[in-house]
């Protein structure tokens, strides 16, 4: 009989990227019993993802500067005394009934477990925005961020001739990563122009090291003779059973596709494409924290103070989940959240907290300037949303097209959950995690903005849970069936 085992901590941290690792470390060093939960086998998140142990490091620095930072964060976490639960899927978050604080339900191969803590740091990062275009559901089309996982975790190339498209720093990082791993980049297709990049230069100057790395990526792409198309968008992925070419057109600054000009064509066997990052705030939304729509931050974000406190006492949000600002800022926000949690729990004296937090705030300011500059390249482009063709599926799980969403609004639906009920968009296995932002953007154009359009209601489970894992082994007699309904 597998039963829910309950355990306690002072601080639970959800998510093992830079924000989560630093939050758990900081809280533990400050004297709180902290627990980090992540479904991956090691800490690191997306940017600082640890390579599998099988990929032996052949020379120092072979994995680049990100790997070194990730390794030092993992070391700091191990030294801090924080507890960790890796390989563990958090499927439910709730306010703890009959006690102050929070409850996080997890499952893994050992069964179900419920963790309780008076403080919860949410460090769930971002999800990728991919605006639909004809053919985006073809095999061989991947997200940009997904491509980084392939490269880092599996040393896998998306294809032999890979087109890299979208916007933001990931575009360059992935193109460079593919080239370094021995792949051929068929072309880089950037929504931004040179002047868009120059506009973010002042902010980027706050991190000359990262700026130099970006410049080296651009130089490498140019040196390889790879076509670099600026102010262009992929308008179609072409192919029968998988992508074999892409069509491109010039776009305006707001992303509006110029349909008048002759589309270009690039042959490729894979397309990796991403249109920016969207804060993942499912957890804070389920728990009922106050949120606001902040396009420059990537979308809906939890309202928080300088110590990462949300509107709910004991609930903190650190890293990209609270607004896109990059890995360096995420680490510092995590540390601030961990310290604030320890202080709010009484483990850290107020003055000591101020002394520790002050230098972090200064460093965070600098990191945010860089992160926000990059985020500026990844904001949603309304013209690109407006250019989604009517017959293109927006919800790929349930095959709901742009036209069907428009039709629901024309029939009187006024916000996205009503559109969902009428069309099934967002009801598939991804539960709108892939299409939700796009559906809201499409509806927002028709109902007067994002706040009116709303967002799909966030619900548990946080990820699809294999039913067998959820139920474990049980005896029928032990199911606590409630008393019979009245006859």
């Amino acid at each position, binding site marked *: 009989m597998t039963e829910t085992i309950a355990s306690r901590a002072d601080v639970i941290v959800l998510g093992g990227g830079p924000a989560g690792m630093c939050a758990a470390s900081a809280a533990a060093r400050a004297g709180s019993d902290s627990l980090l939960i992540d479904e991956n086998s090691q800490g690191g998140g997306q940017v600082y993802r640890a390579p599998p142990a099988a990929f032996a490091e052949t020379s120092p620095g072979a994995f680049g500067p990100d790997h070194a930072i990730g390794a030092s964060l993992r070391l700091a976490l191990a030294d801090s005394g924080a507890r960790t639960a890796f390989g563990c899927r958090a499927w439910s978050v*709730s306010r703890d009934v009959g006690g102050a604080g929070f409850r996080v339900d997890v499952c893994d191969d050992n069964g179900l477990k419920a963790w309780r803590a008076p403080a919860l740091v949410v460090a769930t990062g971002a999800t990728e925005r991919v605006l639909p275009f004809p053919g985006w559901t073809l095999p061989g089309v991947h997200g940009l961020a997904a491509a980084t996982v392939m490269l880092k975790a599996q040393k896998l190339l998306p294809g032999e001739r890979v087109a890299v498209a979208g916007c933001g720093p990931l575009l360059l990082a992935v193109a460079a990563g593919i080239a370094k791993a021995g792949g051929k980049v068929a072309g880089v297709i950037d929504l931004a122009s040179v002047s868009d990049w120059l506009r973010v230069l002042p902010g980027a100057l706050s991190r000359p090291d990262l700026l130099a790395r970006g410049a080296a990526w651009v130089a490498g792409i140019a040196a390889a003779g790879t076509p670099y198309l600026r102010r262009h968008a992929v308008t179609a992925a072409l192919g029968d059973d998988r992508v074999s070419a892409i069509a491109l057109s010039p776009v305006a600054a707001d992303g509006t596709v110029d349909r008048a000009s002759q589309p270009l064509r690039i042959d490729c066997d894979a397309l990796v494409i991403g249109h920016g990052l969207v804060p993942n705030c499912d957890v804070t939304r389920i728990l009922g924290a106050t949120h606001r729509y902040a396009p420059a931050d990537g979308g809906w974000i939890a309202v928080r103070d300088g110590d990462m406190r949300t509107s709910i006492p004991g609930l903190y949000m650190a890293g990209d989940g609270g607004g896109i600002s990059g890995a360096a800022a995420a680490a510092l926000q995590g540390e601030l959240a961990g310290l604030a949690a320890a202080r709010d729990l009484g483990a850290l004296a107020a003055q000591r907290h101020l002394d520790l937090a002050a230098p972090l705030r200064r460093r965070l300011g600098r990191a945010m300037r860089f992160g926000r500059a990059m985020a500026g390249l990844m904001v949603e482009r309304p013209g690109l949303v407006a250019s989604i063709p009517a017959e293109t599926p927006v919800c790929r799980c349930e095959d709901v097209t742009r036209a069907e969403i428009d039709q629901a609004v024309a029939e009187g639906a006024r916000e996205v959950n009503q559109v969902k009920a*009428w069309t099934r968009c967002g009801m598939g296995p991804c539960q709108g995690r892939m299409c939700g932002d796009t559906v809201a953007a499409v509806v927002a154009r028709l109902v007067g903005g994002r706040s009116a359009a709303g967002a799909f209601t966030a*619900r*548990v489970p946080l990820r*699809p849970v294999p039913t067998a894992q959820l139920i474990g082994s049980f005896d029928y007699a032990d199911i606590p*069936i409630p008393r019979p309904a009245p006859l």
Partner: protein
Amino acid sequence: MTTVLDVAVVGAGINGATAALFLARGGMRVALLDRGQICRQASGVNAGTLTMQMTRRALIPFALEAHAMWASAAEWLGHDVGVVVCDGLSLAFTDGEAQLLSERVAARREAGAPIDLVDGKRAQAIEPGVSDKVLLAGHCKVDGYANAYLTGLAFRRALEREGVAIMENRPVTGADRAQGAWALLTPEGTIRAKRVVLAGGVWLEDMASWFGCAIPIKVLINQLAVTERMPVAMRTVLGIASGLLSLKQYPHGTVVIGGGWQGLGDRVAGPRAVIPENLVGNVRLACHAVPALERSRIVRAWLGLEAETADALPAVGALPGVEDVAMVGSIHSGYTSGLSIARHFARWLLGAPLHPGIAAFDPARLVVRPGAR
């Protein structure tokens, strides 16, 4: 001087929407108000079950009538709600459940539900997906399910065609009596009507209080869950003797798991949180009934608010001591029976004698402090 409507219906779930539709068809000028949108609470998020085997004995005649209405929705409503008519089984796995089932089947049969008792082997022949642990089952050929989330769209289209003034996102905050009509107060102005119908589900208690009537309504927070699309695992509607399971697979492949396991929430804050143990218990029960469900994934759990009166029977009829105000609601398993009860209620408002079965649901029996206005 604003227009005075014949009837203002407050609450746009299936009871309010059905009443508004038939009142409009009867020639009345009708407005349908809701603080949210049509059928977005219990009427849009319930498990869609249309079964006799979870219906209260006193509601069986109405459930049978409503089942036929759901099955023919395309004709009288004008729009399909994804209704599938199929066999239903209520299962018993233990001797205690078998005893409970026998009693309940007998009572429901007496009330007119065509339910037969069958053994486990026969149950498996009717539903090959069902577990071999079934001892006894209630078998009913009048069963089925709807796609509850489509209810709002179907009613909206029908109501628009009948000329009902649909006023969504229009919370009513109170009522005043002036010049022989009711004035419903809303932030966007006053709605005047000769008569008012309260159809607010769990909010009936608040609505009655606008008129000085105290009718306690208990709030059930029902949890539901759905799997991802999966290969065909079942073709019938399944429940258990105690009524604490409802299970069906939609044509698109998802399986909805319900049965009234409780979550957290209340009438003011709405649904608040799924109780993990109750979700696990509900899903275990589902997998015990249909073992193939173990090979799916649960993608979503959600909550719906169900109203229950002190005697768990509906509140249908005039508000005692209050002129020209009536209510319809708090119907147990109301998605199954609401259509027919709300239609009888509308016919009564249009001048027909009240159906004798419904007269028993007079709200007067539920009042703890009589009307003051």
